[in-house]
């Protein structure tokens, strides 16, 4: 009976105490971040450590693995496929990001004008970015089909190509062009819409003052628009660099890395080596080549772009 009394008296006190504890920022804060922290430690940080270990081991699907030092990396550098991939990654990322930047600025400048059907136009421009990439890329595979390519049909009809036109996905340089084109197609909306937001935030008075001083449209673009857009452009380019460098979907669906590895990126080669042939160690070593690029982007973002936040 005494025990029961105690329990009855203790329960409200316990509740009050929990309530008080939850009101302390030092308690509530860690409590609120725990689920996110657990998730990221278990499913991001831990796999990352595994990747580091795999890369220096001879891990093979379904077999115990041993430490082999840097032999995976040495082997990779001796393989033509990897050296080709290394080169592809830079050609692909460099040309796709440059194209998206130039076209993105152009498109954003156009969208920033007084337009009819403004909302519909924005909706149309953003569409490639929201549709599932794997599915829309399938549409491009059909558009680049060797026999029924609508791209070639149009090119021939307009007199731009000699029949039968290039075999887009079957020839080395054309395949790279195709992969870059689809990446630009998908990534352009992100550039255009983000740069547009940057354009809108430039004060009108600057343009009016420059116009009063006799600056033409070209001078205004180089002297006002571009310098003031620089922070936005830096963010967009950094973001896009990491996501273009680590692209998987477009290459996997469009070319599978072919013809003869000419469009393989680190991600697609890692999948082929790590899963299709089972050499997980070597696959993980290939994936890790994304890491320096990631570190650079993180460093640049934290140092230059988000300095004000943390």
């Amino acid at each position: 009976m005494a025990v029961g009394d105690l329990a009855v008296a203790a329960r409200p006190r316990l509740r009050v105490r929990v309530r008080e504890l939850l009101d302390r920022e030092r308690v509530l804060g860690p409590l609120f971040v725990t689920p996110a922290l657990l998730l990221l430690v278990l499913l991001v940080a831990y796999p990352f450590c595994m990747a580091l270990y795999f890369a220096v081991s001879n891990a093979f699907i379904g077999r115990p693995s041993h430490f082999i030092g840097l032999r995976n990396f040495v082997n990779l550098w001796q393989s033509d496929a990897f050296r080709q991939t290394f080169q592809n990654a830079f050609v692909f990322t460099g040309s796709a990001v440059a194209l998206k930047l130039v076209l993105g600025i152009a498109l954003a400048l156009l969208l920033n004008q007084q337009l009819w059907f403004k909302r519909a136009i924005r909706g149309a421009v953003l569409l490639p970015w929201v549709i599932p990439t794997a599915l829309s890329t399938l549409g491009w595979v059909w558009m680049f089909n060797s026999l029924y390519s609508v791209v070639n049909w149009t090119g021939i009809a307009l007199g731009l190509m000699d029949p039968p036109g290039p075999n887009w996905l079957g020839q080395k340089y054309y395949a790279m062009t195709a992969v870059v084109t689809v990446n630009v197609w998908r990534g352009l909306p992100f550039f255009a819409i983000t740069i547009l937001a940057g354009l809108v935030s430039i004060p009108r008075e600057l343009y009016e003052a420059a116009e009063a001083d006799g600056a033409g449209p070209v001078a205004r673009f180089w002297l006002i628009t571009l310098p003031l857009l620089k922070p936005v452009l830096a963010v967009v380019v950094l973001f896009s660099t990491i996501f273009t460098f680590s692209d998987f979907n477009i290459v996997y669906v469009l070319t599978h890395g072919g013809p003869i590895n000419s469009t393989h990126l680190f991600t697609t080669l890692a999948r082929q080596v790590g899963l299709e042939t089972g050499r997980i160690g070597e696959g993980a070593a290939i994936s890790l080549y994304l890491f320096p690029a990631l570190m650079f982007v993180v460093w640049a973002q934290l140092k230059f772009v988000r300095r004000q936040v943390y």
Partner: protein
Amino acid sequence: MASIARRRRVGKIALHLALVPFLVFALFPFYHMALTSLKQDRELYDRQAVPLLIRQTPTLEHYTKLLWDTPFFTWMKNSLLVTLLSTTVSLVIGTLAAYALARLKFFAVSSFGTGIFVTYLVPTSLLFLPLAQVVNWLGLGDSKWALVVTYPTFLVPFCTWLLMGYFRTVPKEVEECALVDGATRVQALLRIVLPIAVPGLVCAALFAFTLSWNEFIYALTFTSSSEEITASVGITSELIRGDIYFWGSLMAGAVLGSVPIVILYVFFLDYYVSGLTAGALK
């Protein structure tokens, strides 16, 4: 006077004409996809036919074939289940973390914020190999539940980052008033901050839904049997037998697999535009 108005009008038309190539580039692939899915095979594989139009009677046979002869419904159901569950879970976890990061002072809060930001930038294609091992250890190999568990790894950092920005815009004073009136922190979050941040929550939910519906590499790696795969994987791998492509059905699948996103997109276009810039710029 009249000539100035006219010049302005000509300028405006020229502006719209300059937009045409961009719009054609953005929209033509979708037009061509839809067109292909409605063509009869006879016209589809006729090299003399004009590929930009349908000249013969359009047909729904590719759609019916897709719906009745393939497990397309199962794939869509899987996609929907995985997407809804992982979105909900990530939104809850992300809201809690974002509130703590935006409002509370505690041990190591800033390094946790940096950690969230770094994982936000980690591409899914970096970790899929070791994650496949983890998934196997959890006993989730070749199961859609592997996707429910792994999708939050990229959704939570995204939601947290986006919501943190929205929570910061809620004036501190409003919340402090409630605290002075005797509300607890949890009550203040539920009754004051969250209602004000509803646009942010809608935005995070939309983007989380879109990101997980569109996810491909994890789905491709962690699931393989026909009963477990999602729409994107099913359409890109199961509809292609060897080297034979059934283009009509493939394009029908691509169209139908995009429908949920298109519906959301039509209704919430402005949220997509604002979320895109908020996620990147805040």
